[in-house]
């Protein structure tokens, strides 16, 4: 059996393999610290577009009521997602039953399953392709910390090494109710979000007042 292709590609497959290996090694080296909750820094771009209204409530309502998840299901928690999507637990009650095949149309990434380093660049690419605003739920023990595979040589110890995570849903796998609860927590979080953030407070230099002697 000969492996041959009738197409000429720009890169040979060994070059692509080496390139992929380099990307993974760089990702491994650059992700020793876990990424913090994104609320603090995610809206830096939004600060430039200041609209002086209180549209926050209605925008948050629109955002939280139609969260469309993207399919990122590398392992067995996906079976629970199927149950959640089905008629018994029925995620469509919350307006988020539409699993988008394309990350460009999605707001939420439910990371259901163990992530290997070989898969990690693709997950980050999916995350980067999602338009802002976007949220991530780490589902299950593997999504939170790597689970029982944490000390393995090829498993990412938690999605928050790769991408910022908003809500963590523990369990191995979590019950469908637990994930629905997690999504509701995310909705509450979105409801508190300010689309137009506060103006940065003026930092006045502290003046030391002279002490008034007590009479």
């Amino acid at each position, binding site marked *: *059996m*000969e*492996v041959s292709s009738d197409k000429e590609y720009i890169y040979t497959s*060994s070059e692509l*393999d*080496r390139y*992929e*290996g*380099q990307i*993974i*090694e760089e990702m491994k080296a650059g992700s020793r610290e876990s990424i913090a909750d994104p609320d603090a820094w995610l809206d830096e771009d939004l600060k430039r577009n200041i609209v002086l209204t209180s549209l926050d409530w209605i925008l948050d309502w629109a955002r939280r009521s139609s969260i469309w998840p993207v399919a990122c299901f590398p392992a067995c928690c996906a079976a629970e997602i199927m149950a959640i999507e089905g008629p018994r637990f029925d995620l469509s009650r919350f307006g988020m039953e539409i699993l988008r095949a394309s990350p460009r149309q999605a707001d939420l990434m439910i990371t259901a399953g163990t992530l*290997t*380093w*070989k898969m990690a660049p693709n997950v980050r690419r999916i995350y980067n392709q999602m338009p802002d605003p976007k949220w991530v739920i780490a589902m299950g023990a593997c999504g939170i910390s790597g689970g029982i595979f944490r000390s393995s*040589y*090829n498993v990412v110890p938690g999605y928050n090494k790769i991408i910022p995570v908003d809500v963590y849903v523990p369990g191995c796998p979590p019950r469908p109710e637990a994930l629905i609860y997690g999504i509701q927590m995310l909705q509450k979080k979105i409801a508190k979000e300010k689309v137009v953030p506060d103006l940065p407070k003026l930092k006045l230099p502290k003046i030391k007042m002279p002490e008034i002697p007590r009479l």
Partner: protein
Amino acid sequence: MTVALSSKEIAGQLSVKFPGAAEEAGKDSVLVKSDSLLPVAEYLKTGEGLEFDYLNYITAVDYYSYFEVVYQMTSLKYNRSVIIRTRCYSRDNPTVPSVIRLWQGADLQEREIYDLMGITFEGHPNMKRIFLWDGFPGHPLRKDFSQ
């Protein structure tokens, strides 16, 4: 149900055809010399009354002093199965002939063994890592692997 063929019987047939190829006939498997693996496998696949045309699996075991590669095949015609093993004693560059020309299903399994155990299969057209990335240090299923 598939009947596991007696290894003594198979070894007897092999010793007639390839004298010295079968090193030992254990309880349920035949140990074959690695340099005569390919003719033996070809004979098992095409030989009269054998016709083991389906390769169930290939796997490898690390016994510290040598590696052992295990093949199980089934004859769908006669509904019988047999297990053959082969050994390679080098630890730096263990090599076993590839059986991909006989059973195409060996392709990914041989690559997996190469990836995780570090055994090179000679004659495989695409011998490279499959689960781990290019540049991964070492072969993680070896007993002396440490992170």
